[in-house]
């Protein structure tokens, strides 16, 4: 009997220690992330980043994303819906974080399509056809031309833009900014400069809700 109690007490104690430790670790990490974000606002908001919605919107979401990332694809329509719920109140800026192997040329193509005014169309076409050009977490740039074909892009211009140093340095800067902001996974969101306390759409939604309340109170 004594042995059984000892065993149960030890098991319960260890499990409690695990969860208490996890709670404090995550809390500390979240505080640290918030501090990093607060100190590095310049690396977060770049004027030339592609963005959606009202440029003067009170709530500014900055997203670090990879077109090859499945969660980025799944979140995209959800954020669009959130923006539609609050018309004119939310601006979404997209920052490139091509973490998947092979993803960088795809980002280059996306940015080159943006130069032809087709960023949204190209992004949506890439997300919709993601399963065709991302295999085993590796992006295959050769397979993106078919889904992009209906956009009617000037392919010669697109190819030469893709090879431009301007786009290469923009991606390099975005990756540096991601590093500065401690972004290691995509998608990562910042709402008016604040990181999500934990990853999840509900967390994003509540952070946006808070920001909306704060700005409407002013």
């Amino acid at each position: 009997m004594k042995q059984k109690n000892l065993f149960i007490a030890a098991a319960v104690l260890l499990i409690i220690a695990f969860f208490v430790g996890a709670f404090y670790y995550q809390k500390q990490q979240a505080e640290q992330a918030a501090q990093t974000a607060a100190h590095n606002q310049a690396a977060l908001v770049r004027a030339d980043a592609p963005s959606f919605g009202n440029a003067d919107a009170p709530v500014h979401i900055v997203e670090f994303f990879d077109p090859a990332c499945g969660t980025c694809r799944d979140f995209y329509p959800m954020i669009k819906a959130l923006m539609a719920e609050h018309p004119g109140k939310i601006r979404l800026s997209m920052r490139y974080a091509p973490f998947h192997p092979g993803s960088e040329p795809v980002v280059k193509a996306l940015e080159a399509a943006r130069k032809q005014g087709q960023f949204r169309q190209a992004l949506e076409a890439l997300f919709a056809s993601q399963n065709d050009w991302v295999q085993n977490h590796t992006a295959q740039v050769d397979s993106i031309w078919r889904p992009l074909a209906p956009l009617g892009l000037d392919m010669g211009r697109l190819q030469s833009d893709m090879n431009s140093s301007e786009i290469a340095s923009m991606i390099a800067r975005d990756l540096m900014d991601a590093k500065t902001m401690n972004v290691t996974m995509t998608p990562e969101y910042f709402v008016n400069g604040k990181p999500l306390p934990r990853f999840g759409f509900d967390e994003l939604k509540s952070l946006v809700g808070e920001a909306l309340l704060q700005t409407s109170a002013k």
Partner: protein
Amino acid sequence: MVNSSTTSAWTLVFTAWLVATLATLGALFMSEIMALAPCVLCWYQRIFMFPLVFILALGLFPFDPKVVRYALPLGVVGLAVAAFHLLLVAGYIPETLTPCRQGIPCSTVQIQWFGFVSIPLLSFLAFFTINALLLASYLRSPK
């Protein structure tokens, strides 16, 4: 009904269970909470550590001294993998000989407490302690 040598054999197996559970929860904490990706060798050590939590617990109630027979092979192989990992991190075995092909190279040191305590060292110590406790329990058990 319970003689003292049985009690001390039980306590030794119980302590081995404590070490295995601590190591298991620690490994889960580092991979799930701290988001440190386990390398290939870490996975092999996990394969031999995690089942000990259940095998040793089942051997405690009712106490079955034969549990050592089932648990020790896991502990010994786990210790061998941990020793290999330690030698690899220390640079005695070149990385090319390891099974790590992609992801985190096993020679990467992700944590270093007090300047020398790394994850493979913790794993080695845990396996070593478990094996020692199980052997001691085997020797103490009434034959």
